[in-house]
């Protein structure tokens, strides 16, 4: 009996030891490779602003259209509840005005806020942990230079046990490693800059890397694509068939800076926001660095790989104003919806009338038999207001039923992707909820 107790205590001690070992902090300040848009010579505020954009802080911390920059309140719907981002303006009471440099650095790099409570990894400290202290503090200086906004944080709405913040310690022990960016001397400086932009600041992996059952990133499957908030973040490895290996450098650069690459696709949903809030502000040298790095991400097939047919018979047989022969056996209600609400812009040959952004041929959306992003764009539309003329698609989710959106998605997949889509009304219902 006593022996049993000793074993129990030993196991517990070992467990506690392991817990603290796995939760240990990398105390290194870290150094960043050169970032063309934020050279060391620049003013700290200018650096901070650029880095904050590169890290896309605003997207999560500003309710779109509210005008309350960085005051938080953006909802994140997760399978186990809803999280709200916090106020990171310098307001003392409701924001982070009272935080010291160390408080801020700990939060950004370790996911622990000033009062010692764990943050949820919806906040990408898992990536930001790679940032240098000097970069983190430049961002803090920038945030503190902006108007303070008094806006109390919204309480999260999470179910048990996910509402137990302390439990995140275990999650961190399992899936998080505090660690600064380590340059690879065997690669070019440009590549290293690109990697820092991608994995530390841009936190691409947070969306594009598959997650395991514990919601941790599968590092062995880096950037091979994942689904989140009802959208699909595509495979951006160098796989030529399923990733972006077949894209030219300028395709990738154009996608990153303008949200569109001819014949490849247009950003929408969360990715459009990333372009709008973050990537388009990158200095061309930084964009080029990012491209250089992305090209070297090992090719992976990823889950539910998408095979692109960029010249589908039904679309090729069509002209801009009418369908070709291949539509006769397609879904009746999908084609009706397309001819009514969609063909005017996208056109039957998928070329897009008013802007190349509306072209559909060769895009991954219409080649994904699950139609995840097609459905989302139909439900929520798209609105990019930065690349010259407004790139705008109306929302159809309010007046069109789940069945209609499903039928339309499947039609689009068949006509422009030459595949049998699998979208059901139930799928659309789930995607409406962001699941």
């Amino acid at each position, binding site marked *: 009996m006593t022996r049993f107790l000793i074993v129990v205590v030993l196991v517990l001690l070992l467990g506690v030891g392991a817990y603290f070992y796995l939760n240990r902090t990398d105390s290194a300040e870290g150094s960043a490779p050169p970032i063309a848009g934020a050279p060391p010579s620049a003013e700290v505020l200018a650096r901070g602003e650029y880095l904050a954009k590169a890290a896309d802080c605003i997207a999560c911390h500003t309710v779109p259209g509210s005008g309350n920059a960085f005051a938080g309140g953006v909802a994140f719907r997760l399978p186990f509840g809803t999280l709200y981002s916090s106020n990171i303006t310098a307001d003392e009471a409701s924001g982070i005005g009272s935080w010291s440099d160390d408080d801020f650095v700990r939060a950004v790099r370790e996911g622990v806020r000033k009062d010692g409570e764990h943050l949820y990894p919806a906040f990408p400290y898992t990536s930001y942990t790679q940032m240098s202290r000097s970069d983190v503090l430049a961002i803090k200086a920038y945030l503190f230079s902006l108007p303070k906004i008094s806006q109390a944080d919204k309480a999260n709405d999470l179910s048990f046990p996910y509402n137990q913040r302390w439990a995140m310690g275990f999650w961190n022990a399992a899936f998080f490693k505090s660690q600064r960016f380590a340059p690879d001397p065997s690669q070019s400086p440009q590549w290293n800059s690109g990697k820092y932009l991608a994995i530390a600041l841009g936190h691409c992996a947070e969306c594009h890397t598959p997650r395991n059952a514990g919601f941790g990133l599968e590092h062995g499957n880096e950037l091979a694509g994942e689904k989140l908030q009802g959208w699909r973040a595509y495979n951006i490895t160098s796989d030529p068939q399923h990733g972006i290996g077949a894209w030219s450098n300028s395709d990738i650069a154009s996608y990153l800076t303008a949200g569109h690459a001819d014949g490849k696709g247009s950003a929408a949903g969360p990715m459009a926001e990333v372009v709008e809030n973050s990537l388009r502000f990158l200095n061309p040298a930084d964009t080029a660095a990012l491209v250089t790095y992305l090209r070297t991400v090992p090719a992976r097939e990823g889950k539910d790989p998408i095979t692109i047919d960029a010249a589908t018979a039904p679309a090729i047989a069509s002209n801009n104003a009418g369908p070709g022969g291949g539509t006769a056996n397609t879904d009746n209600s999908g084609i009706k919806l397309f001819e*009514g609400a969609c063909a005017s812009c996208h056109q039957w040959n998928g070329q897009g009338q008013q802007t190349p952004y509306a072209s559909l041929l060769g895009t991954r959306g219409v080649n994904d038999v699950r139609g995840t992003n097609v459905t989302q764009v139909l439900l929520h539309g798209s609105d990019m207001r930065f690349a010259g003329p407004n790139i705008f698609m109306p929302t159809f989710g309010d007046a069109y039923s789940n069945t209609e959106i499903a039928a339309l998605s499947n039609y689009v997949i068949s006509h422009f992707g030459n595949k049998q889509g699998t979208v059901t009304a139930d799928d659309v219902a789930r995607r409406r909820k962001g699941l």
Partner: protein
Amino acid sequence: MKPVSGSPQDKHDDVDLSRRHALQAGGLTIAFLWLGGTGVASAMMNARRQPGDAAASLADGNPPFAPNAFIRIDTSGAVRLVMPSAEMGQGIYTGCSMLLAEELGVGLDQITVEHSPPSDELYGIPALGGQMTGGSTSTRATWPVLREAGAVARTMLVSAAATNWHVDPSTCTVDRGVIHHTPSGRSLGFGEVATAAAKLPMPDKVQLTDPKDFKLIGKPMRRVDSSDKIKGATQFGLDVRIPGMKVATVMACPTFNGKLAAVDDIAARAIPGVVDVLRLDNAVAVVGDHFWAAKQGLQALHISWDHGENANLTTQQLRDALAESARHGKSIVARNDGAQPQGTTIQSEYQSPMLAHATMEPMNATVLVTADKCEVWTGTQVPARAAGEAARITGLTQDKITLHNQYLGGGFGRRLETDWVEQAVAFAKQVSYPLKVVWTREEDIRHDRVRPMYHDVISAVLDANGRPVWYGYRTSGGSVLARFAPPAMGKDGMDSDAVECVADVPYDIPNAKVEWIRHDMPPGLVVGWWRGVGPTHNLFVVESFMDELAHHAGKDPLEYRRALLQKSPRALAVLNLAAEKIGWGGQPLPARIGRGIALGEPFGSHVCAIVEAEVTPQGEVRLRRVVVALDCGIAVNISSIEAQVQGGVLFGLSAAMFNGITIKDGAIEQSNFNDYRNLRINEAPMVEVHRVINAEPPGGLGEVGTAIAAPALANAIFAATGVRLYKLPVDRDLLVQNADALKSVASAAAHTGRNVT
């Protein structure tokens, strides 16, 4: 819109005053004639009255022969007809022209038509108390007046010719603008006798053409406005271009009754082409060299709104309060034949949503305000009212206001309002140039004056055979009439529109109690007329309920109705005709395809619609075919009748299938055709129109098809699925066959439903 009842008699019917007489009579008489102003007490249209002042005469070119407000003939023989009603698609310019031309003796190809200037006096519709186009009244109201007006003119022209020839006028004939004296082989064109005819006294009595001799009336005539419309040559309000004009677009506070707090316009003013930023207490406009600059400017504004008392208003709050008032609120009784008898009682509750008009042409007006005058160009169903509002806002007297009415790119009751004209005048007052204010579609929907929402409780007491011996009806909703024409409200504050088509039903049901509970919307949520208004929801409720009763009695809905129509031959006739044309009771229909009947007597016509619809396992509704039987009495233009019924039915089906205005945070949620959906050609069924032919006085048409569409659809859906729809628009979630259907890949082709003949 329904007719306003209780308008006073035209007190001046017997004032026989040609324009020239009026000019000679001068001062007092003219003042007397104009005294009515826009009020209800003014005189209404008359076959013998002319504009009473020289300015008006000058303005319309001082035609030598103008025996009344509708006809102008030049010495060249050119005939201009001035249209008392506004043309918004209903074909009234053609109908009015046919009435005038028939009696005048000209062909439709020999005339040109003109919009009327604002004047209740000359163009007021007695039933509406003013110059308005609405309530499906145009043909009903103008039918006697315009024929007589044409005959008056012809009589005078013939007299002039007869006097010239020294022959008896009765020996002369008229054909295509030429007067013939066959015995002597002489003839004179209208132009040649115009000046002489103008000097003749107005005839007291005129001989109207015998209907059997009609050359135009009752024939299918091509519309007089088509040839310009197919070439893009017709000028709508939106097409007005005035030298020096600038174009503005507007954003008003999205929240009902909200106010403008502040605008930062620095970025907007920096946009090339932006000219000005103007403010009202609840709206801001950006003025540009063209619409695009204005719109870009509007997008660049940073506006803060004071959202006011409605900031948290939602549709659900309104719905709940409305339901409560329908069930328990204090009512105004429209009809009560005594105590509710004992017996089996059936009761149901129905809900109808708010609806937007979404006229194809968004709201717009062009206005020039100077120190001493105001000119307005807009398409309106109420020219005199609009001019009155312009006077009120500018502080100018009525005679300083010129309103140029335009062709309307759809009305549907939206243009019975004047809100956008008022707003445009208020903006234009702030600038020196002519200002064209154009609403975006988003603004047009968010600031529509919506058809009210309703909650209705209907019940019936049945005899042993399932026949109703009594029905009860409690309808709750806001009142359009109370705001629009307060004097027209009935006894105890009754709004006759609220109970039209339910206070009286064609069915032989001995007793009834019909009540209206007035339930006004919060301030700022203004409800308005909408093609069919009251009857659109009352017929939805009554005719859905009749189907419920038939179902309860285990009877075929056609037989059940027939048995109750033995005292209403005109209703029975349209029911039978529709049933025959669709082949009711023939081959059984495939599964999930059903036919629904709706019967009613809206707007003075008798109509039966039968819709055939298919409901897919996922609950999607496909419209396959619609058959309408109509008795609208004497037909003026049967081509227009068919078009109006087809268009009205599709308008009503579009709303029933898709439309409902909803409110969140005190603002309308819908904004454009992506979320306020409209039936498209590939969703539209064939609509067959059949007529019961008789010589009864003409009934209304513009709203008849709209009012009868929804219940026929709901009954068809019931027949197809067994699901009774208690609210509109169609809730497709209720029609899903089973949960599995939603798990199947959405690509199974439905029966292709269209029936094209």
